């Protein structure tokens, strides 16, 4: 069923806000999504009714809290078609990527291993592995992009040809270009070249917008974050194949992740708890479960269809503004909802200031993807990105704001 944006908007109280007398037009969901009422209610309910710690109490509240937390794990596993015992809650996707960098790459690989990355990565899925490679004295190779903003899979085949790549990390959907990468294909290429290779994917911009089956993608680990998929900040996850998680070394140590401790050492709890040291984010897990319920209520096919349609209108709208150049695929079948563009002769900070003064929220800057921006030969872009609460009514203020910026900053 198609998404009824007017009804969806009713559950996002923030959208009633005015900014300096302007209707709020939120086009920055690639940075963080807005929060619907059911998510706020789920978090509030935990604090009002079941507030207690997880995994150790023997009273009703503690059992409820544990059920909430473990229920969220099952909900996320179901949402991504993965095994709940492979779902490790983290603070965000960045921490999930670091968990792989420390628990697998640094702990299990050595100087003769070769890492594969791409130039399209968000710093979160790049820096942990560059640093890990440096620490190991291992080589890291980067898949380039084609002129239309796709991963260059021919070049990737060349980089894999010697069979030395034992770890690959790449992004599912680019936060700058919007490109949807063929994760299943690149994963097969990596594993065909070396069947011991572990494949890690950054699903931050994919999980909120597309139906994702981690199982079908064939990847070993998949990082997601809650706050871009209608959930609260402060919770993300590493969704791993349990057998891969079993082989990983503990990253953070402390409470909850241990089985037994003596003064000289410790043994580790079962997965996934082995990777969740300390009291976790219980309210946030409840909020994330509610967000997943909202998304499942829409159906991820419908969410993707809406995004595809809205992004098409967004690209068309940008096409009407003189001097706008869009970076990334123009074909909506090949891209997600993040649309980066430059307005000729005007710095994105000035564009963003003009839009912001009219209630239009966009992201400006390098989007934590500096190597990619260097490839594109731009220092910064303006990025508009939609979600379930955006429709064509949001595009007129964007276009008007861009035209106002062009007039205001004309030299």
């Amino acid at each position, binding site marked *: 069923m198609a998404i009824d944006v007017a009804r969806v908007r009713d559950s996002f109280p923030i959208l009633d806000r005015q900014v300096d007398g302007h209707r709020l037009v939120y086009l920055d969901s690639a940075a963080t999504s807005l929060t619907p009422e059911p998510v706020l209610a789920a978090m509030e309910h935990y604090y009002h009714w079941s507030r207690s710690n997880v995994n150790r109490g023997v009273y009703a509240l503690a059992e409820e809290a544990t059920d909430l937390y473990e229920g969220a794990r099952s909900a996320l596993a179901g949402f991504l078609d993965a095994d709940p015992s492979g779902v490790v809650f983290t603070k965000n996707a960045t921490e999930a990527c670091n968990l792989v960098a420390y628990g697998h790459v640094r702990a299990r690989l050595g100087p003769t291993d070769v890492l594969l990355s791409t130039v399209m990565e968000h710093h979160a899925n790049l820096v942990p592995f560059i640093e890990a490679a440096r620490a190991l004295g291992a080589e890291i190779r980067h898949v380039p992009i084609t002129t239309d903003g796709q991963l260059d899979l021919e070049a990737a085949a060349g980089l894999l040809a010697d069979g030395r790549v034992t770890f690959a990390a790449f992004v599912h959907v680019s936060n700058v270009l919007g490109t949807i990468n063929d994760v299943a294909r690149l994963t097969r290429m990596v594993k065909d070249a070396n069947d011991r290779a572990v494949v890690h994917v950054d699903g931050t911009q994919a999980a909120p917008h597309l139906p994702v089956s981690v199982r079908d993608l064939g990847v070993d680990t998949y990082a997601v974050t809650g706050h871009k998929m209608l959930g609260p900040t402060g919770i993300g996850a590493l969704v791993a194949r349990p057998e891969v998680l079993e082989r990983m070394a503990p990253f953070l140590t402390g409470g909850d992740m241990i089985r037994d401790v003596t003064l000289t050492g410790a043994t580790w709890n079962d997965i996934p708890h082995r990777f969740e040291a300390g009291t976790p984010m219980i309210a946030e897990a409840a909020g994330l479960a509610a967000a997943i319920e909202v998304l499942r209520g829409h159906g991820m096919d419908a969410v993707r269809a809406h995004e595809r349609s809205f992004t098409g209108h967004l690209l068309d709208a940008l096409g009407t503004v003189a001097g706008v150049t869009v970076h990334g695929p123009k074909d909506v079948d090949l891209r997600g909802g993040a649309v980066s563009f430059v307005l000729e002769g005007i710095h994105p*900070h*000035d564009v963003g*200031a003009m839009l912001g003064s009219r209630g239009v929220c966009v992201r400006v800057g390098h989007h934590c993807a*500096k190597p990619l*921006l260097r490839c594109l030969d731009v220092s910064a872009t303006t990025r508009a990105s939609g979600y379930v609460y955006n429709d064509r009514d949001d595009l007129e203020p964007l276009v008007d704001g861009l035209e106002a910026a062009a007039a205001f900053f004309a030299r």
Partner: protein
Amino acid sequence: MSMEDLYQEIILDHYRKPKHRAPELEDEAVHVHHSNPLCGDEMDLRIRVVDDHLDAVVFDGEGCSISQASASAMTVAVTGRELKDALDLTEDFRRMMHGDEPARPDDLGDGIAFTGVARFPVRVKCALLGWMALRDAIETYERGASAHTVTHEE
């Protein structure tokens, strides 16, 4: 946030018709290159020094209107000043960007138009880029060097 609070007419004038914008300077004493990787701003600043005075100051670069306009206003405000005096004025501008009343409003010239930028913390570094490059150029000169490159992380 109102566009008029941030972008005063004087700022837009400097942005549209920058003063002392040039890629080269004859008899330059120091050339510094400053960049702000967070927003991608790049600034080349060149000074010519005669008798401990800034005989000429030119800038070139890429960046938002605030950074380019502020550099332009800076060159006007400091050209002809004694090095020590220019450093003192730089400090006055820096303090103004952090919310203090400027001690030398008349000497800052058009630089005073940037007062409102202090209310937009993310843009303060833009307004400061040219001034920080100037301070570095003078300090580089005083060290007896002729070139310096600085990357601003914040």
